[in-house]
């Protein structure tokens, strides 16, 4: 996929901005707080249908504005015609914000229909929550990654969440008073949707495991061995994930739900299901979130992202775009160089940095100097492009 141009209106700190991108490297250069990440966020929004950091769409509007719009023109690999993606957010008379996504000018019925059109892999600082954050952060990362790979996953998550919320409300409001027959039907629904969600997560992880272990070994100069485990409440699933065993997860969930039904009624909360799962990462046998250094954590996230990039390119036939927000910070020059060496040339890259000084930031400066790049200088919501440097062969 190659993004040709992007237009922002009243989006975050951009009043009106139009940009034409290079097919290769797009370097977003600017001081802190000027709007570099906002620009990348707009790309992420049109890829994932959600912002990577704002939980509410209204945070995306320029302060004091009633509407915001982002539109993007891209050229898919092997197609002759361009594709246009739009998102328009507007407040109605009652003050409610309405968000509409459009594909080639046609409004989409819901967000999930946008998925898959602009495949992307991104690295934001918030991705470090994958290691430092809570289990729910790790599940969110996993679900977002699986969705890029298989967009049915989006509906699996949405459906499971709806059922879980209904069941939670039932337990919270009625607790011991709720009838076993009523709870049983929600459990049956939860087991079915939960099994499907878990299966989808496991088959992705199964696919991700080997390549990411190899990737990390290389990134660390053959020094550190990565290992990770998925922690489900179903013992069978934990064993199955590295070796692809077919087990009846639905039945396993049903058995566990029945086993803990009284505990759930007593405590008034949903105790069983994939919403309680976690992923643990280990380097040389030590848990990363407890023992890993900042650089190691960053390297690990990077290894996972590079593997996602590789898997997505292979399976979708459409090279994803790569979004890298301030990725070089905390990485030593060897790891920086590894990253740059492992970005395939057909991938369009969007990279932010605070400086391009050859002494302060030699790896990035050399990378940009190699050509096929455009530098965008960002200052207080204004972006100026510097002419494209073509690679002379």
């Amino acid at each position, binding site marked *: 996929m190659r993004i040709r141009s992007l237009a922002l209106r009243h989006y975050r700190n951009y009043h009106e901005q139009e940009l034409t991108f290079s097919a290769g490297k797009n370097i977003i250069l600017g001081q802190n707080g000027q709007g570099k990440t906002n620009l990348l966020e707009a790309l992420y929004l049109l890829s994932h249908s959600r912002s990577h950091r704002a939980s509410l769409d209204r945070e995306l509007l320029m302060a004091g504005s009633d509407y915001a719009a982002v539109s993007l023109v891209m050229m898919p690999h092997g197609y002759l015609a361009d594709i246009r993606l739009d998102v328009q957010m507007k407040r109605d*008379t009652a003050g409610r914000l309405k968000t509409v996504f459009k594909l080639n000018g046609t409004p989409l019925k819901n967000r999930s229909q946008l998925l898959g059109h602009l495949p992307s892999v991104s690295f934001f600082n918030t991705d470090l929550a994958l290691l430092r954050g809570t289990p729910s952060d790790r599940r969110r990362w996993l679900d977002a990654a699986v969705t890029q790979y298989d967009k049915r996953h989006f509906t699996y998550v949405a459906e499971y969440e709806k*059922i879980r*919320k*209904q069941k939670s*409300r039932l337990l919270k409001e009625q607790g011991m008073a709720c009838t076993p*027959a009523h709870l049983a039907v929600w459990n049956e*629904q939860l087991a079915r949707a939960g099994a499907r969600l878990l299966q989808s997560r496991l088959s992705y992880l199964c696919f991700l495991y080997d390549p990411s272990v190899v990737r990390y070994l290389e990134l660390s100069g053959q020094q550190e061995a990565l290992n990770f485990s998925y922690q489900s409440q179903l013992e069978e699933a934990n064993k199955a994930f590295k070796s692809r065993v077919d087990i009846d997860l639905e039945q396993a969930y049903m058995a566990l739900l029945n086993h803990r039904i009284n505990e759930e009624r007593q405590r008034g909360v949903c105790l069983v299901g994939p919403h309680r799962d976690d992923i643990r990462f280990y380097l040389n046998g030590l848990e990363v979130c407890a023992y890993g250094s900042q650089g190691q954590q960053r390297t690990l996230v990077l290894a996972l992202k590079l593997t996602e990039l590789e898997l997505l390119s292979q399976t979708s036939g459409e090279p994803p775009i790569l979004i890298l927000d301030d990725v070089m910070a905390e990485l030593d020059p060897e790891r920086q160089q590894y990253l740059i060496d492992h970005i395939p040339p057909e991938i369009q890259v969007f990279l932010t940095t605070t400086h391009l000084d050859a002494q302060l930031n030699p790896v990035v400066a050399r990378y940009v100097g190699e050509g096929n790049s455009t530098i965008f200088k960002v200052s207080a919501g204004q972006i100026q492009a510097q002419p494209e440097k073509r690679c002379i062969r």
Partner: protein
Amino acid sequence: MVSTYTQPLARLIEAFQTLPGIGPKSAQRLAFHMLKQSSHDIKNFSDALLDAKEKIGECAQCFNLSGQSPCELCANPNRSPKTIGVVIDAQDLFALERTGEFSGQYHVLHGLISPMEGIGPEDLKIRELLARLTTDSEGRNRVEEVILALPPSIEGDTTSLYLSKLIKPLGIKLTRIAFGLPVGGDLEYADNMTIARALDGRQEF
């Protein structure tokens, strides 16, 4: 904002605004339209509202809205009591009725199981449905099939599942209406969930 309307007009506009789907602008248009009508027409209109409210109640058998009990549908001798179509509300009942394809009787649940909205099985007309399945007015059970005409949503699925657990043990045939592509629709434009469900519910041809 201070209202620029005289008090009775403001009250009328507000009254229209309480209706579903009516915003401030539509309410204003309706109110001005009403003021242009003759007093006789308005009297007719308000009588129709009150009359409907006073006379329409629920059928004691199927819980459809009706001016009589049993309702016109339950009392109709041409409608087979062997089949019962289970629907959420009177609107869905009329949607089925418009097709002219269903000649059985109905049972209106008055909602779907949804703890988020505070609706549990005991709030629906489920006990009454079961009573109809076990006996009729002559003390015999004449129902041969129950058709669940509930929507393909989480709540619709859950309610169907709940009913199936109660009805299947009675040995009565239980079916659910099919889900899939709209007639005259294009496969290409249907969303994935719809196609997946249509594929699931495929029939031998």
